[in-house]
């Protein structure tokens, strides 16, 4: 599935979350990630994320869809595209 993940966590845990999610998804903006995951990868990722977060304070929101075919992405301002590409 194709995911867009945003998080808002306490300052202390921002770095940890960043490092963790970077292993699974492409970083596109501060606290925003995007990418393709399998069910297994997703469970693995969220399993660890749940341990890292403080349930009372932090929030992680995940938007997901079957594939990015239906996703219309537009970038305004600074174009950081290429960060999600597999051609470097």
């Amino acid at each position: 599935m194709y995911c867009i993940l945003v998080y808002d966590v306490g300052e202390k845990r921002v770095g940890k979350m960043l490092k963790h999610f970077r292993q699974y998804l492409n970083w596109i903006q501060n606290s925003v990630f995007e990418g393709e995951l399998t069910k297994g990868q997703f469970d693995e990722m969220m399993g660890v994320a749940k341990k890292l977060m403080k349930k009372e304070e932090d929030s992680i929101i995940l938007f997901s869809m079957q594939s990015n075919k239906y996703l219309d992405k537009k970038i305004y301002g600074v174009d950081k595209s290429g960060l999600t590409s597999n051609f470097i």
Partner: protein
Amino acid sequence: MKRMYYIFTPGKLKRKENTVFYVPFKNVEPQDDENLQNEVLLSVDSDMAESLPTNKIVLPVQDIDSFYIMTEASFNTKFLDFCSANKIPIHFFNYYGFYSGTYYPKEYLLSGSLLVNQVKHYSSISKRLEIARKFIEGAAFNLSKNLKYYNTRNKDLQAQIDTMEGLAMDIPSATSIEQLMGIEGNIRKVYYTGFEEILGKEFELISRKYNPPSNPLNALISFSNMMVYTTVLSEIYRTQLNPTISFLHEPGDRRFSLALDIAEIFKPLFADRLIFKMINNRQIQTKDFESRLNGYYLKDTARKAFVQEYDEKLKTTIKHRKLQKEISYRRIIRLECYKLIKHLIGDTEYEPFKIWW
């Protein structure tokens, strides 16, 4: 599905924070590989430099299927170790775009009994012939399928198709591997004569030559075949098959000959069709090649364009008849490996992949 990552801009790959960082050379700190950095920066031509990413890029390790290094890159053993731990093969291509090798991480899907069976099928001449025949049969079918496609589109290729099908009739009666290879060679020779009809005069093949490729089309065919070969190798790595024991090609030293065997079946679909498409749409033209050292080579920009199309191609999905679901072209290769395994362990007889659309 995990993606293949293609590195076209010179830089350093490293393990950091349990994932992969890519740092273009102009951002590498001076104390790291200073000599290497200067050397490489001098060799980067101006139009490449513009497309250099300005910052580090973090690649999600969980998204990496394999690496294709098409340029100068540096890394250390920590990075290789990390790739091994995450089961990521790295394919290297040299300055001229020739395949130079693969970093093949430690095997992780081991099966002693399959290995024994694989060797048994290799050493018994009748069993080996049976499999080799299937590979050629599949390859011949797919080759003629390609010509048939263009035959219905105002190109006259009937003569080639007839000759190829005539030659293919001899496959079942072949009694040695050499004979099979001979038939395969003849079929391909006829097949290549059809290229001029499909691609027009501008890209003339005359004859297939490599080491070095004698004209632009030869260069393109060589490059695309290497891409198919490496893709097949990556897929074999994901199965229990041993990549060095092959049936059609002679298992030699220092090469993964099973990948050559299986690639035979997929070259018509993955490589040739892409060549036809890209040349006919003028995405690749004769000016995209340069002649050097008695040979022709693809320029960087064209190489990148080709790889991009190739990657798209692998992601294309079709409905599989037997499985009744959408699968990608890349998946077909894996399924082919599974079919071969089933044959080797005596479960189901191997039937080569034939283009059914």
